[in-house]
């Protein structure tokens, strides 16, 4: 089948310059953490990697998230001259590459490092496992199930800060009166999808979430429970009306300076509040699962290592993998990045209050698989397009529900 041919071709023609020094290898690492906070986190990783082994981290940063990086990754791999390691999101993005045998098998170091037990939640490692072999190193957890509220906005409206979705709905008229935007979001597909995801897991609970995203069960998709959630989504459309923002961090800025009351955005928004010098609890609040089901999805990033003919490079790749999962790297990287670690056995006490909340939920197992892990990138993209149409029009809850169901079911 073509995949087998591809692999033979690749191995045959992969030209790799044999490094001069015995084991000092240049590892070219592709990732898309280019802005302030993220770059600092990556630097911590690089320093630790170069400290523990005398290989060098050749930085291949490309801004523009997965959309820009992906053609580069695939072209370099298809072109037979791959990078040493590359960031990808947890989930099915690399499944094809793994099946085509283009990704390095890490099962040996996974078993040696006993990853099965230290990785928490285990579903993260499962996402890296295909036919029992481990092909990636989970690095962090970002979850979309957070709502960030501006305490000053609520004070201005003379209403107690909302602790959950119902409070926010109730406070909306007063907020409008005070000239505050009840709910704010950037007008991009992935932001709408994150928010919708949070509503399904938060208001619907774990069973409905899996029935919808994992099983694609028609009864659940078209059922009354989902209909109720779609009705809430229609309400969000009204609460969000009046903003004309594209980038997510500009929406967060609205919450930071108190023009908007709330935004549903992943935990990476925490970095924006930190940079703006705001403190959780006094300036803003972070609420999981719309204040209802304390569930956080384990989206986030993992590192994959394209197959390489040169043993030294492969050895260096494995050293890097072990560094990425090491306790020190997990602590320093995740603190700087504002994401949750994939290891349960490390001390994250210095983390901020919101991160502590996340850690607590993580500790008592309140995690669910992210939609990236349950749906193919194609379906994820179609849902985003559909939601863009939804928020740009007056599409009814019923039509939206039907459209969403069709997309999910066609992916199963």
């Amino acid at each position, binding site marked *: 089948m073509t995949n087998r041919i591809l692999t033979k071709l690749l191995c045959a023609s992969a030209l790799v310059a044999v490094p001069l020094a015995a084991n000092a290898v240049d590892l070219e690492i592709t990732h898309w953490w280019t802005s302030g906070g993220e770059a600092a986190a990556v630097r911590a990783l690089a320093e630790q990697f170069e400290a523990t082994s005398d290989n060098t981290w050749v930085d291949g940063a490309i801004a523009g998230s997965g959309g820009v990086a992906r053609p580069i990754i695939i072209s370099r791999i298809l072109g037979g001259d791959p990078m040493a390691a590359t960031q990808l999101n947890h989930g099915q*993005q690399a499944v094809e590459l793994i099946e085509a045998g283009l990704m390095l098998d890490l099962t040996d170091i996974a078993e040696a490092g006993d990853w099965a037990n230290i990785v928490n939640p285990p579903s993260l490692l499962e996402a890296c496992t295909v036919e029992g072999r481990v092909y990636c190193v989970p690095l962090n957890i970002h979850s979309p199930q957070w709502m960030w509220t501006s305490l000053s906005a609520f004070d201005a409206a003379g209403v107690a800060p909302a602790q959950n979705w119902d409070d926010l709905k109730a406070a909306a008229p007063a907020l409008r009166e005070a000239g505050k935007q009840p709910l704010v979001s950037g*007008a991009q597909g992935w932001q709408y999808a994150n928010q919708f995801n949070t509503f399904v897991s938060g208001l619907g609970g774990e069973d409905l979430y899996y029935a919808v995203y994992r099983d694609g069960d028609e009864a659940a998709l078209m059922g009354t429970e989902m209909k109720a959630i779609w009705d809430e989504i229609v309400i969000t459309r009204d609460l969000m009306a009046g903003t*004309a923002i594209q980038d997510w961090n500009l929406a967060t800025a609205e919450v930071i300076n108190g023009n908007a009351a709330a935004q549903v955005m992943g935990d990476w928004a925490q970095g924006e509040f930190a940079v703006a010098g705001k403190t959780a609890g006094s300036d803003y609040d972070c609420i999981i699962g719309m204040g209802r089901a304390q569930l956080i999805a384990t989206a986030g990033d993992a590192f994959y290592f394209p197959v390489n003919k040169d043993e030294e490079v492969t050895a260096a790749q494995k050293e890097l993998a072990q560094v990425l999962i090491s306790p020190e790297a997990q602590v320093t990287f995740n603190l700087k990045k504002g994401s949750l670690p994939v290891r349960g056995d490390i001390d994250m006490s210095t983390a901020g209050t919101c991160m502590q909340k996340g850690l607590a939920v993580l500790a008592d197992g309140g995690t669910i698989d992210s939609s990236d892990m349950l749906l193919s990138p194609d379906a994820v993209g179609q849902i985003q*397009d559909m939601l*863009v149409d939804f928020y*740009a029009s007056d599409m009814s809850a019923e039509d939206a529900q039907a459209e969403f169901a069709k997309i999910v079911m066609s992916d199963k």
Partner: protein
Amino acid sequence: MTALPDPDRGAVRAKAAPARRPSRLLHNPMSKVAAMPMIATALVIFVGCSLWTVVHSFTDSKLLPRLNFVGFEQYERLWSSSRWITSVENIAIYGVTALVLSLVLGFLFAALLDQRIRAEGIFRTIILYPYALSFIVTGLVWQWVLNPDFGIQNVVRDLGFASFSFDPLNNPDTVMIALLMAGLWQGTGLVTVIMLAGLRGVDEDIWKATRVDGIPAWKTYLFVVVPILRPVFVTATVLIATGIVKLYDLVVALTNGGPGSATQMPALYVYDAMFAKQNLAQGFAASTIMLLAVLVLLIPWSIHEFGGKKRG
């Protein structure tokens, strides 16, 4: 006494003609060798890759190209996707408007520059400099200029027109204007220069004849000069059209398809399908439709170029 022909006397004349005319292929071989890169590019790259794309548009290739065929499934999905329909409408609207405006503005600016004004060189440089900048630059700057908070709207409001509102980037109905403003800002310069060159090629006597006939300048430009510049308009149209069909960088830099899907374009759909949705076949299906559209557009052009008049 028969005079033997002096053998060396005829030496200078050409050697006896070969028995049979050489086959056309061997006729001046060097030109064919020199044209080899063109032939290779045309066949291998443009024809080869297009066929490769069309073939793969009938498969279910996701992240990596593979050849298990699924018939017209990708096309069915394509035409049922509202985002694709919107992007086809958008490219039609933007394409026609941009093409017409480019040609009209280009000709107008060229006519202005053709009035033997003193600072022609400076004005021409001003109109053409944006062409040297990349679309990322154009998108970034125009995002700023059109931004309601600190762009034009803000400045005009400071001048006292408090109610003035000009926020095309975030209003789906007027975002096309923003795209046109940036696109024309970038592209009209080249069209102007081409038109100016064409104007300068018009025979001076024709202008004198129209003055003698008492025909006002604007009528002369419209009814006499424009028909004469038809070949220039055709070339300009080809240059503009290639830019429009492949419109991608400017939209990504300026509006990234937003607000909503108001500026979604086919090229964006292709890129998003191939790399974000990791559905190569869907991307290839979309681009095959674009290729067909181009073929339909290109046939009249090539008839004009090579049909009718043989090279004189």
